[in-house]
């Protein structure tokens, strides 16, 4: 085995290199525009590196810890694109902060590096390393405004809970190591086929506590609404998309490799988590008055929908999950983009009342937000609809009727809270509305997200093909 494949590691190297460059640039000259510009350039260079590998890339190991294959290219690409959108949205939001803002971009890049490592990892060591790089950066990002009480509280809460979850995860990994004697993901299946070790199952279940926390699945979801509410709007977007997406993509790979050993048991476990997340997420969202909290519960429910596809297993289910995840990324980023454009570090536009009459003042922004909310609700012409369609298709194909019917019921309940925000936006205008700001970068990002949302919603063929190729690299 080639110990160090230079070409395959280019994207990760660029990402890590950019982090260092931005950090050094701050030392030389503290400039918000410079830091943001370097970040965007670095992310674009990473994308170029990924494009060089291509979705059809055959698996190329980088040390025994990481593998760059089509799946990893797709996953890292998705995460980097999302980070790019968040960086573009953050610029004018961060400009309103009177403290040191440049470090935010270092943290953003570092967290994304951790996320990218997760997607490419095939080994428990890299799994844990990636997770910690991601989490530690997030602690600081969530508490980035230390003078805002909610922000600080959210950061601290996330720190304590994430540390607890990580210890469960480590304990699970330790049990698996004790049972199999290896830290490679494939090791589990290999050992299982020889002799089903009794320690494997408890190990995996403990790992799922840690993973469930990161994905905010019910019953490990308690932190989510507080952190979404307390974190700066762009950071909340990051927690909702990149952080969850990275873990989920890791799970796809882990599952694929460990499936022979754990298939039936995990199916039941994931089905139960999916049902609980869909129901609890949607029902609790009904009680909220705060848009960021609503989006938090909505993201809990959406991860539940995702697991419906995920527990179905097989190439089709993995494709459906990846498609849904992409649609979810676009929609959540778009929704948080609107929140960000209306917010400042001192006053976040988070109550439904802040959105009253938005349409009559900023029809473009309100129209975009309507599209994003309809996408979350799964109404046609939006990517969210196509995503839900694929999830339902995967669930129906696997004849998992209970999750499918719960999905139908839960998303009907969920309509109510999305419509409440929409109703408010089209109600007669009030005076106390934040002025919508937004520089060129933020507008480009929001415009691109809207176009992609409708494009995938009407003509999903291209994305489906891409997802299919990327997933095929796992099953090769």
């Amino acid at each position: 085995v080639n110990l160090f494949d230079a070409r395959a590691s280019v994207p990760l190297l660029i990402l890590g290199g950019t982090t260092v460059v931005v950090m050094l640039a701050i030392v030389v000259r503290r400039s918000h525009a410079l830091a943001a510009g370097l970040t965007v350039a670095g992310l674009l260079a990473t994308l170029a590196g990924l494009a060089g590998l291509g979705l059809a890339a055959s698996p190329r190991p980088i040390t025994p810890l990481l593998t760059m294959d089509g799946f990893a290219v797709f996953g890292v690409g998705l995460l980097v694109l999302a980070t790019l959108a968040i960086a573009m949205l953050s610029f004018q939001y961060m400009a309103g902060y009177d403290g040191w803002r440049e470090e935010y971009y270092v943290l953003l890049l570092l967290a994304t590096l951790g996320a990218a490592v997760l997607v490419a990892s095939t080994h428990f060591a890299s799994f844990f390393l990636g997770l910690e790089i991601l989490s530690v950066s997030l602690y600081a990002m969530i508490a980035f405004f230390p003078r805002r009480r909610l922000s600080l509280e959210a950061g601290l809460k996330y720190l304590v809970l994430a540390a607890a979850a990580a210890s469960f995860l480590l304990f699970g990994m330790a049990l698996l190591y004790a049972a199999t004697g290896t830290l490679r993901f494939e090791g589990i299946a290999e050992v299982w086929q020889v002799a089903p070790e009794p320690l494997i199952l408890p190990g995996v279940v403990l790992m799922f506590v840690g993973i469930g926390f990161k994905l905010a699945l019910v019953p490990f979801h308690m932190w989510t609404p507080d952190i979404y509410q307390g974190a700066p709007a762009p950071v909340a977007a990051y927690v909702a998309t990149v952080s969850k997406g990275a873990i989920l993509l890791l799970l796809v790979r882990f599952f694929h490799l460990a499936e022979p050993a754990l298939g039936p048991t995990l199916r039941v476990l994931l089905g139960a988590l999916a049902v609980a997340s869909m129901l609890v997420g949607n029902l609790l969202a009904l009680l909220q008055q705060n848009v960021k909290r609503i989006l938090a519960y909505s993201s809990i429910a959406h991860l539940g929908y995702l697991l419906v596809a995920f527990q179905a297993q097989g190439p089709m289910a993995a494709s459906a999950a990846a498609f849904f995840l992409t649609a979810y990324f676009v929609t959540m980023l778009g929704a948080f983009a609107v929140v960000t454009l209306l917010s400042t570090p001192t006053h976040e536009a988070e109550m439904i009342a802040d959105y009253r009459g938005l349409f009559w003042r900023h029809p473009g922004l309100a129209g975009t937000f309507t599209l994003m909310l309809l996408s979350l609700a799964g109404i046609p012409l939006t990517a969210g609809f196509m995503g839900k369609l694929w999830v339902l298709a995967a669930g129906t194909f696997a004849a998992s009727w209970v999750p499918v019917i719960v999905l139908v019921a839960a998303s009907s309940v969920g309509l109510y809270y999305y419509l409440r925000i929409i109703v408010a936006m089209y109600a007669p205008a009030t005076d106390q509305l934040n002025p919508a700001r937004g520089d060129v970068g933020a507008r480009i990002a929001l415009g691109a997200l809207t176009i992609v949302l409708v494009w995938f919603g009407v003509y999903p063929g291209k994305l489906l093909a891409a997802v299919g190729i990327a997933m095929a690299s796992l099953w090769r």
Partner: protein
Amino acid sequence: LAVILAILLIPILGALLAAAAGRASPSAARWISLVALAAGFGLCLVAWAGHRARLWTPGAAWMLELDAAWIPALGIRFHLAMDGLSLLLVLLTFVLGIAAVLVSWHEIHQRVALFHLALLSVLAGIVAVFLAMDLFLFYFAWELMLVPMYFLIAIWGHENRRYAAIKFFIFTQASGLLMLVAILALAFVRYRQTGAFSFDYRDLVGTRMDGNAGLWIMLGFLAAFAVKLPVVPLHTWLPDAHTEAPTAGSVVLAGLLLKTGGYGILRFVLPMFPEAAARIAGLMMLLAVIGILYGAFMAFAQTDLKRLVAYTSVSHMGFVLLGAFAHDDLAFRGAVVQMLAHGLSTGALFAVAGMVQMRLHTRDLARMGGLWATAPLMGGLTVAFVMSSVGLPGLGDFLGEFLVLLGTYRTSIGFAVSAALGMIAAIVYGLKVVQRAFHGPNVLGLHMHDLLPLESGVLLVMLAVLFGIGLRPSPVIEALQRAIPSDPSSTIAQAPGARARKSNRISDTVDHGLSPLAGPTASHAGYEPGETP
């Protein structure tokens, strides 16, 4: 064929143009909408005239068809097609669409551009529902027509509009998702049998299913259609939505959205699941009769004029459900005629209710009275529409209900007799409207101006069409010839071996003394129904 695409695109383009032009001038939005809908209507008529023969020639292709690839990975196609059933309902869509634009002319003064964007988008969605022959495309259009309708109610509606709009949306969306699951399940059943994905109507219709799978999948479809139709006890969204919607919204809801439910049952449920449909036919007919009587009873109990008319819809759509599940060709024709006639007569009644509300700022019957003296033309036209609605012979509704009852009588005398009681109950609530609003003493001293020329024009045209359907139904009956499920070359595709329907040809009924109704059809030169194999 490009014509069918044009029929769908014209309202969409009209919507966009109206929204763009309406920013500068509200009346431009109105005129553009009017012209677009009139163009669509004209195009349908031209197509009808041009391809008339295909409506009864056995073995001919669809009247119009367009089939293009859309999402190849799942075999989903952009497949539009038009047969007699679609043609009639699309024509109804354009007629009521024009009426909706015209009744809003004097009513809507706020956000006119946006209003016409929403209105024409609903109409485009409805046209797409009637034309889609790919089940996925059908679902797509089915969901899409809800969104602008939601905005029509939520922005331009009356006092309690937000509640009504959200309730409407959640009811239809929840049942729609069940239909989506059923569509997917059906496609997967076929995939397991043939190894290829397809959502095409013709492909899926022959899918073999063992008993219970077929029943469950059918129930998924039926859930969506039963909410829309509506079938009691799933009707509770209807009175709220119809009452709170602006006039044009009520006209579209009652006249068209309910018809999508009936269309779905006739087009999809019955042909695709003949065995399962036969299993629940008795239950559905029972629900239909309950709906007919309950709707009539509730209508009588209302004091809100729009709510009253809304409940009459529940009653009248019961006849459509009865006709659909009576498993009889006459009843099938009756159900379609009833859908057309109900669309016109109830649409007109909602228009009248809107005009009264615009003048008096109330819909409360208790506060009206003696309006005939102050607005005789409105009173006269209202009586005419009420009479059509309660089933006076010579007007469209009578023909529909009569054919349904006649067909049902052959299947089940009990259901036919009890449904006929609904026609008597209809007279009671019909007279109540006329008496409370237009007769009696004008205690409150109400004074309102009579119909404007535009308003009377709309209503007179709708009345004329109702008379047309009632007195000379042959074009309608003729257009339905190949949509009749028992016809050997039916465009309503049939599962193999499911043609056991009672083939009651119109010529049979002619012998039984119904020639004034059916004569022109039977003597048509193009086909002789008795000769078809």
